[in-house]
């Protein structure tokens, strides 16, 4: 027997929806609260930042901070350097991670399970633990103050995660597809490039995004290895607004918003592939 809906009566479906939204909306508000504060502060003057009580809506909104930050620090240079580090480390890491992950997904060899566990374990090493040894190594190679150094180190540090993720994704692809390709005359590498990689596009995008974000957000390595102002990335550049006796909140928030915008736009562009890639790996 189906219950007849009458106007004004809460159906089970409506109750479920109210429950879901009742839970999600507060979570959403809590999640975006820092973002709202950042955007709001970025449109305030330095004086208004300190006027109590703090307000979400600036009393006298101004875009001056967005104009000033380009003059106070070389923000364009910082953006460009971050982009180079992010893209460079992503590509370098993928070039190494793809064959490694493919081999782990397809071949059996002695010590494979130990190696896979090693890949997982190595991600627990924060770069800061190795920083002194790395500094001596890089100095001895005369590679201090070079963006290439940051790209290479970032790629190395994200390699284990990328390999692990891609291995999981490659395992979701039936090996029969490659076998068919090889029957048609492709080599193993050819089958990987022509069949596996196109089918792995969502997984590759997901890994590339994580890798790019690692490079984009990296702080310790550029701080330690870069010296020239014209080579610093955004993460270090934003720190210029945090000085010894004062934080220039209004400018810091404006610059942070612009820095966040890049990642947000990137996410929006590849959201579908990212979700599919993540789901595929988790299902495996």
């Amino acid at each position, binding site marked *: 027997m189906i219950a007849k809906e009458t106007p004004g009566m809460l159906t089970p479906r409506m109750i479920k929806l109210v429950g879901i939204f009742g839970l999600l909306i507060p979570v959403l508000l809590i999640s975006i609260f820092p973002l709202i504060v950042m955007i709001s502060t970025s449109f305030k003057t330095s*004086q208004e930042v300190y006027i109590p009580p703090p307000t979400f809506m600036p009393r006298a909104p101004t875009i001056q901070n967005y104009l000033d930050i380009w003059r106070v620090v070389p923000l364009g240079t910082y953006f*460009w350097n971050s982009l*180079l580090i992010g893209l460079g480390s992503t*590509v370098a890491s993928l070039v190494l991670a793809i064959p490694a992950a493919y081999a782990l997904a397809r071949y059996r060899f002695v010590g494979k399970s130990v190696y896979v566990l090693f890949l997982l374990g190595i991600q627990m090493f924060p770069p800061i633990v190795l920083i002194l040894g790395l500094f001596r190594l890089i100095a001895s190679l005369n590679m201090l103050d070079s963006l290439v150094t940051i790209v290479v180190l970032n790629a190395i540090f994200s390699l284990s995660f990328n390999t692990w993720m891609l291995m999981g994704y490659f395992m979701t692809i039936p090996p029969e597809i490659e076998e068919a390709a*090889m029957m*048609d005359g492709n080599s193993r590498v050819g089958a990987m490039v022509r069949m596996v990689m196109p089918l792995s596009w969502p997984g590759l995008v997901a890994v590339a995004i994580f890798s790019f974000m690692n490079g984009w957000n990296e702080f310790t390595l550029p701080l330690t290895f870069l010296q020239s102002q014209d080579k610093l990335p955004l993460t270090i550049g934003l720190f210029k607004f945090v*000085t010894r006796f004062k934080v220039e909140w209004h400018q810091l928030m404006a610059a942070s918003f612009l820095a966040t915008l890049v990642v947000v736009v990137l996410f929006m562009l590849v959201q579908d592939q990212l979700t599919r890639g993540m789901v595929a790996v988790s299902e495996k």
Partner: protein
Amino acid sequence: MQNQKNGLSRRNFLKVMAMASAPLVLAACAAPAGAPASGTQGGAASQAPVELRFVAMDYDSRMQPDTQAVMDAFNKSQTASTVKLEVVGWPDGRNLLLTQISGGQAPDIFNGSGQWCLEFTSAKETAPLDDLMGKEFLDNFWESGIKAMTVDGKLYGMPYFLDPRGLYYRTDLFTEKGLKAPETWADVREAAKAISNPPDIYGFGVGPDDYWWYAWIGAIGAGNDLAPWTQDGHSRIASEEGIAAVQFLTDIVLTDKTSQPSPQNANRDSDLQPLFLGKKMAMLETGSWMPTIISHDAPDMQYDLAQLPVAKADMKHPNVFWPDAVMMANQSKQKEQAADLLKFMFNAENRLQFALQRGVIPERIDVGKDPKYVDPNDPLTKYKEFYVKELATAHNVFQTPWPATGSEDQTSVTNALAHIWLGEMSVADALTAAAKEIDTRHKLT
């Protein structure tokens, strides 16, 4: 099963590799690899200028361009050396320097707090400057600043940022309540009680670290021994004066309840100064940089400046400072040229500019008297004059012999204050325990 003939062609493989390498190539183009390490020569020719590195911790957003201008002027002024400036943030500056020093890549010149100066000096990583700078040159500086950077009779840092402190109070609120400028602890408590109306306004800013020092020297008074150690190295924090100092702060926090919330976690720069700038605090002890910040962030604020309060009316007002230094690395292979850079940085003209730009107290005697510094038309001049006068007798927190455990000892005091203000321990018990902890650390029990 495999057919090599129909595998990935060489052309396609090269295409993939070329595309993959593009960002790396771009990065390489943007960054000619291999910054010369400190101590390397700028060129093969013996007469080529040597390259110096100056790692500067920043004080404000103008530090980079202002300091770069000085470096550019130095580079133009002579041909023996060229200096490369690297400005880094304070919060990570010490670790960065430690990494560079450990890796044999120390900059020739760097600035930092007086505490770092003592730490690096104890590790023999700083070069003595007396002979390099010369007595005649050093005679231009306040003795308190030079003494602050002197260890075992040798000068290891040029005083760079001297920061005596004062009590800022809101004159509009004081006038409204008919109060006079506070001079003693009793005045401070009375004013705080009269004005405090949380959460709209808090009477008196209280925190650990600096705020313990203000109370400590206020309990003893100028002209007396302000060091927190006895001659034989034992901690004095649980002495009669030490207990009186913390009791004063505790009365404000727990008895009068006129401080801001959570004083045990309060940070001067990120918590207390913003409260004062936001006009939510009636009185705050802080440094000589504050008038510059107020003139920028709260220009309509009505305030004045008083000496740090003392326990009793018949005491002389003491002052205290945490000096910063510019140091020369012992690893520097071109100390003569680095000394020339130091002399240029510390000439009267450059130090005048630095003092005006940063709002700090000049360490050169002549700059403190310069009409451009004490401009009668500048509304901030009266504060500058106040601090120049205070600097002459201010106590250096890092006064030697600063124990190697100085930072940890301060943490013991901070922890004791937290126990007291959270109501977990009495003042005497917490300080006695902290003093014992410090003495044990110094192997004096």
